[in-house]
C-alpha cells in the first residue's frame, strides 16, 4: 500500500483523557509537561473519579490548563462523574462557571449548569445511545460528544453520521470522540474497592490507590486478568486499542480519539496513534509496539465491533 498524505479534513484529533488514576502531584506535573511536547491536540484536565483525591486542586488544574494552552493545546476541564455531596456539587458549579476553558460534563448536574452557557463537551458517562438523545443534548449547546464506551462503531455511524451530523444550538455539527486507548472505565460505585481490598474504610483510606499507577488488577480464580480496581471506579484489565481501525473510525464519523493516560510508555502511544491514524504509518507495527507497553490484560476492541468489550479481533 502506498502511504498517502492525509488531508486536513481527514485528520483525526487526539484528545488526552483525564488521568483516571491517583498519581502523586509531581508525577502529574511531569506527565503534563510531557503532554505539552506531544502531538496531542486536546487535553482534558481534572479529577473525575474520587473527590478525596486532591493532589491537585482546582486552582492547580487551572494553572496547568493555562500552561498547556500557552503551549498550543486546547484544554477542557472535566467534572466528577459521580456526584454525592454538596461539596461535589459546588465544585461542579465552580468549574462550570469559569469561562477560560471549555468544560466536559461528567453527569446531569454539570449539564444543568452548562446548558445554554456556550459550547461544552458531553463526557463519556452521559448516557447517549441514539440520535434523538444526541439531538436533545446538542440543543443544550454541546459542541462535542464523547460516546459511551460500550457503543459500537455501527451505532456511532447511525447516531452522528459524517454525512448528516447532529447540529448544535448554533448550527455547528457535533463532533464525535471515541475512547480509543486505555483501560476502559466500566463502572462507578459509592464504595471504594481499593480501600475495601486493604480492609480500610473509605473515609480513612490512607490514599492507598496512590500505590496503583495503573489501578489494582483483579483476576479470575484461574488467573485471567479481568478487571482493574481504581478506587470507586472499575475498569477493564484489557487495554482498549483502536489504532488499527482508522478507516472504520472515519466512516463512523469519529473525528477525535481519546487516549486515556497510562503510567508507562504513554508518550510512545500518542506518537504511534498520530503516526498511524494521521500519517499512514503501519498499524500492525504500532500494535506490536503498543502490546509490549500495556499493563496485564492485553488489548481489546470488542465494543467497537458490537462484541463483548473484552474481545479482540483483527481489524
Amino acid at each position: 500500500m502506498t502511504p498517502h498524505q492525509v488531508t486536513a479534513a481527514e485528520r483525526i484529533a487526539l484528545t488526552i483523557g483525564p488521568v483516571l488514576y491517583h498519581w502523586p502531584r509531581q508525577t502529574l506535573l511531569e506527565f503534563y509537561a510531557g503532554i505539552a511536547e506531544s502531538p496531542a491536540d486536546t487535553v482534558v484536565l481534572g479529577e473525575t473519579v474520587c473527590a478525596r483525591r486532591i493532589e491537585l486542586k482546582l486552582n492547580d488544574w487551572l494553572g496547568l490548563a493555562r500552561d498547556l494552552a500557552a503551549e498550543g493545546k486546547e484544554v477542557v476541564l472535566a467534572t466528577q462523574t459521580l456526584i454525592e455531596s454538596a461539596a461535589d456539587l459546588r465544585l461542579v458549579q465552580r468549574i462550570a462557571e469559569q469561562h477560560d476553558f471549555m468544560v466536559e460534563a461528567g453527569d446531569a448536574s454539570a449539564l444543568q449548569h452548562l446548558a445554554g452557557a456556550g459550547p461544552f463537551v458531553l463526557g463519556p458517562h452521559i448516557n447517549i445511545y441514539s440520535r434523538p438523545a444526541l439531538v436533545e443534548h446538542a440543543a443544550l449547546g454541546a459542541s462535542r460528544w464523547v460516546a459511551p464506551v460500550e457503543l459500537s462503531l455501527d451505532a456511532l455511524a447511525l447516531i452522528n453520521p459524517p454525512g448528516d451530523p447532529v447540529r448544535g444550538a448554533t448550527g455547528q455539527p457535533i463532533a464525535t470522540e471515541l475512547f480509543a486507548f486505555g483501560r476502559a472505565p466500566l463502572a462507578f460505585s459509592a464504595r471504594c474497592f481499593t480501600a475495601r481490598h486493604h480492609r480500610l474504610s473509605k473515609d480513612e483510606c490512607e490514599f492507598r490507590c496512590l500505590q496503583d499507577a495503573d489501578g489494582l488488577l483483579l483476576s479470575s480464580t484461574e488467573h485471567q486478568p479481568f478487571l482493574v480496581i481504581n478506587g470507586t471506579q472499575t475498569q477493564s484489565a484489557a487495554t482498549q486499542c483502536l489504532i488499527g481501525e482508522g478507516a472504520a473510525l472515519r466512516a463512523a464519523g469519529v473525528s477525535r480519539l481519546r487516549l486515556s493516560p497510562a503510567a508507562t510508555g504513554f508518550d510512545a502511544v500518542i506518537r504511534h496513534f498520530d503516526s498511524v491514524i494521521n500519517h499512514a504509518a503501519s498499524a500492525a507495527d504500532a500494535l506490536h509496539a503498543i502490546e509490549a507497553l500495556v499493563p496485564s490484560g492485553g488489548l481489546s476492541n470488542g465494543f467497537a465491533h458490537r462484541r463483548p468489550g473484552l474481545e479482540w479481533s483483527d481489524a
Partner: protein
Amino acid sequence: MTQESRAPGRRKPELVCPAGSLRALQLAVDAGADAVYLGLKDATNARNFAGLNFDAAQVRDGVACAHARGASVLMALNTFADARDASPWYRAIDTAVSLGADALIVADTAVMAYCRDQHPQLRLHLSVQASATSVDAIEFYRDRYRIQRAVLPRVLTLSQVGHVARHTEVDIEVFGFGSLCVMVEGRCALSSYVTGQSPNTAGVCSPPSAVRWQDTPAGVEARLNGVLIDRYAPNEPRGYPTLCKGRFDVAGRRDYALEEPTSLNTLAILPELIELGVSAIKIEGRQRSPAYVEQVTRVWRAAIDQASAHDARFSVQPAWQATLARLAEGQQQTLGAYNRPWR
C-alpha cells in the same frame, strides 16, 4: 441550587411494588401496594428476562385490576433506545398511554423527549438508571422533561437523601428492599464488557444465555462467556454468577473483591426515611415470584402504616424481619449506602 429549602415531609410514603407478571400484580395490590411497576416483554425495560413481564392485553388487565383497588400502575421504560431502531421505545410509550398507565419510569432523554412532544400530559418518573444523584441533576430533568418523581440511585447516605429531598419539588423515591447493585445504576458496563449485553443497552445484567455451569475436579464452576466468575466447593451454597458478585483474585487474595451477595433491607430506618420527606419506597424484584412479592408487600404495608401513624412509636416487628430474612434467601441483609458501613 436555586431553590429554598423545603420543610421535611412527614407524609405517608407510597409503597411501590414489583410486578413481573399479572399474578404478581394482583397479589401485590391485594397485599396493599399503593402502586405497582411493570414492563413489556422486550428490551425497553431493565428486567428483560425470559418468561417475565407483560404483553398489551396483560397490561390492560393489570391496569384494570390495580385501578379497581385504588392502586396506580407505573410502566418501566428505563433502558436506552437502540441507535438502530428507537421505535420499540416509542411504541411502548404509546402503548402505556393507550392502556391507561399512570406514569412512565424513564431514563433516556430520547424517550423523555418523545413523551414531552407527543404526550405532554403523561406523568414521568426518573428511573434510577438515569443516575441522577444530586439536586441539580434532578432539576435538569425537571426543567426539560417535567419529571415529577426521581428514583435515587442506591449510593447516597441518609443525610444526602434528605438534602436532595429538601431542595427539590420533585418527589423522591428510594429503594427499601431487594437485591442490591453495588455499582451506580445506569453507569455500569461490566456486563457488556463480558457478554455484549448490559442494563443500559439490553435491559439485562450477566444474562443467563452467557452462563455456563461446569462440574470440575476443582469444584463447580460458574462462567460468564468463558470468564470464571466463581468456583464452589461441594458444600458451598451457589449463587447466580452476577459478575460483580463473584470471587476474584486481587494481589494474591481470593475474595468477593467487589461485592458479597447481600440484599438491601431498610425497615430499621423507615421512620428516618419518612422524616426526610421521601415520597415513595420501592421494592425491587420484578424477577421474583408472585408469592415473594405478596409477602414482602404485606410486611412493608404494615410497617409503613405503623411508621406513618399519628404519634407513631415504630418498632420493627420480629415477624416482619423473619419474613424478609427468609425471602432474602439466607443472604446477609444490609442498609446499603444509607448508613455506609464501609465509610
